[in-house]
């Protein structure tokens, strides 16, 4: 998997039945926003079974924390927590987020997610664009505010389709 990319990572996760919701700019891109992102952000379901499935895929992808240069690998205890696991993998940077936007978990976000086809008979959940816009607005960081016009324009174009 030396030259794999985001698609390979997402495919590997979904092939292993990891329950996740793609959030952040990758969610916007999957829904049609022409934008750049350095990583895929996912909110994973933090049940023991799902964390085990996630860990197995992360091991296959050679995941290590990119915030530390000691090559620390993610563990079940880290992934079961609400925090943000910022990882580097053979398939690019992957952030496994226990919660986002003031402690919202997979279960909280699932009703506002949609399932989309990613090819090879696989699907994945992504945070619906209007919800993503709300999250970005609340985050309020300059980098979040900067993308709001293109997110809103994409939503507008989708509604006109």
């Amino acid at each position: 998997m030396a030259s794999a990319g985001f698609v390979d990572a997402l495919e590997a996760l979904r092939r292993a039945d990891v329950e996740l919701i793609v959030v952040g700019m990758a969610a916007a891109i999957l829904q049609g926003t022409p934008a750049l992102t350095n990583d895929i952000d996912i909110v994973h379901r933090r049940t023991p079974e799902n964390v085990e499935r996630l860990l197995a895929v992360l091991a296959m992808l050679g995941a290590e924390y990119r915030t530390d240069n000691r090559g620390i690998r993610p563990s079940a205890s880290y992934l079961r927590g609400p925090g943000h696991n910022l990882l580097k993998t053979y398939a690019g940077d992957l952030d496994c987020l226990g919660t986002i936007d003031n402690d919202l978990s997979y279960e909280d976000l699932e009703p506002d997610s949609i399932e989309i086809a990613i090819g090879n008979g696989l699907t994945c959940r992504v945070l619906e664009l209007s919800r993503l816009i709300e999250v970005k607005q609340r985050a309020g960081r300059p980098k979040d505010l900067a993308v709001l016009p293109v997110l809103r324009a994409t939503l507008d174009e989708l509604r006109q389709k």
Partner: protein
Amino acid sequence: MSDRAPTADEIAPTPPSAVCDDQGVDRSQIRAYLELTPRERLQRASDLAAYFRKLQDLNGVRRIR
């Protein structure tokens, strides 16, 4: 073909208002993206991210977030 240098008027860029909406967004780019499959969109983003990572490596930049 003339070899004279272009004048400033000749190389003036197209004004943003000619291609963008009132928020500065090029809607034609979005419409083109919407024609792609989600997989194709993510693949493009992935290729660009890999390219930027390579540039950062070449420049000795360590990025965390």
